[in-house]
């Protein structure tokens, strides 16, 4: 299922998940995404504020597979870049904006999933 947001372009694309497993599996993974990813994003923001770049790098690395498998293409580059910049061990220009975008898009995705799947 491909959800189109108001700004154009798909918000997420579940076709990859459907290739892996059946409907029950897809639903399970959606629930996992809703459960795990928003708290991880929150921790990313906390880590950034505390300038804990090692944790920031680890968390960005963690959420990357879920973003890819949910087909959230608008964030694929950001997730990679947050991890790469955090690996430098210091603040970098644009890092804060990317984290902000990550937070916004993930929130949109979660809202949309809940609506679509009546969760």
């Amino acid at each position: 299922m491909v959800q189109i947001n108001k700004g154009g372009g798909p918000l997420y694309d579940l076709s990859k998940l459907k290739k892996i497993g059946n409907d029950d599996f897809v639903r399970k993974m959606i629930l996992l995404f809703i459960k795990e990813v928003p708290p991880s994003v929150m921790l990313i923001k906390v880590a950034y504020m505390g300038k804990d770049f090692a944790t920031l790098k680890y968390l960005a690395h963690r959420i990357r597979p879920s973003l890819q498998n949910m087909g959230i293409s608008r964030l694929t580059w950001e997730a990679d870049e947050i991890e790469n910049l955090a690996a430098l061990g210091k603040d970098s220009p644009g890092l804060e904006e990317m984290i902000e975008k990550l937070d916004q898009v993930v929130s949109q995705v979660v809202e949309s999933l809940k609506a679509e799947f009546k969760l």
Partner: protein
Amino acid sequence: MEQFKIFIVEDDPWYGEILQYHLSLNPDYEIFRFTTGKECLANLSKKPGLISIDYSLPDINGFDLLKKIRDFNHDIPVIVISAQKDVNTAVSLLKEGARDYFMKDDNTKDLLWNAVNKERERQSLQKEVEVLKEELGQKYDFNKAIKGNSPALLRIFSLLEKASRTNINVSVTGETGTGKEVVSKAIHYNSERKKKPFVAVNMAAIPRELIESELFGYEKGAFTGAQSRKTGKFEEANKGTLFLDEIAELDLSLQSKILRVLQERELTRVGGNEKIPLDVRLIVATHKNLPDEVKKGNFREDLFYRIMGLPIDLPPLRERGNDILLLAKHFMGEFCKSNKMEAINISPEAKDKLMKYNYPGNVRELKAIIDLAAVMSDGKQINSDDIYFASVSTTDNFSGEEKTMKEYTIDIIKHFLKKYDNNIIKVADKLDIGKSTIYKMIQNKEIIVN
């Protein structure tokens, strides 16, 4: 069928879920998921068939976890999955014993699936080999491998038990067909080396110019045609038993090389420099009289004493009395079973005929006789006429039973008359007797000429 247990150690719930789902598509797999190294280690007693670990776990890194798993049981295959694009890490893990290393990407679940299938097949084949080895060992249990209860054979059983209990070299002598290789295998499969290789080499069957490379192996390029390195029989038999049949056929130069290998307990492949340590139990066999060969200068005395070990001289079948009938019955049973035939009896007359023959080919010949008799019979019973002796030895029937000198003389003359088409002058010449002796026997009806 027992389920194949797989551990997935992955702290990322998303990734762990995908891997678990994918692998559980096979109902033969039982998946256990852990999020820490500690949980994995605490459950190793469940005997997993394979463990997949994430390199970056919260409580331990993949390298240390791999080491701990292998310390517990180094046979458990471990696959490491990581986002680390680091060749050095991969190499270190593989050197430490990881079965494989995968990058975390879209293909990982398929790679893991293939790796698990491959490992399962490997373990299944390994179990099959263990079972076959066990069966082979049982087949070579003394009483099953060597049939007979004659006094001559019971002495041999006693020696075989002594040989099996230690690593002493053994020299097996006996006429052709007495069971030298069977006895050697029985010793090996009843010894502590039974799970290690038994390698048999017949010196008489290998061209002289190839024996050295066959025994010691060769390095790539050692000679024309040496396209790659080849392991020799000594190396193949390492930790196990090497059986050298017809050892007396070795020429003197090779005897020196073998002596050196046995003394130094190491060998160098042809064309090579590397010294390879050896731990081989040697059993040799010959139909010749080795001490005689030593006296004649055909066999090195020092090598003789090195290989002699425990000498076992197998009695010819003709000296084993009722073992002939015991073996005949056994071979008959085997033949009928393998050819899906009803059991066939042996008539008293056939048994009598079997007991009178002297078997220059020994047990091997008896088997051939019984197999043929089973084919020639009416299917229910072997009669005397079904027994054919086709010995190529010129001393065939003459020593099969006790006779008077006159009876032996008559038999010999009959044999020669048959051979030379009743040409009395020729036979007398060959036997260096007067032709009148033969004529007299014919006149007295001691010999009937057709």
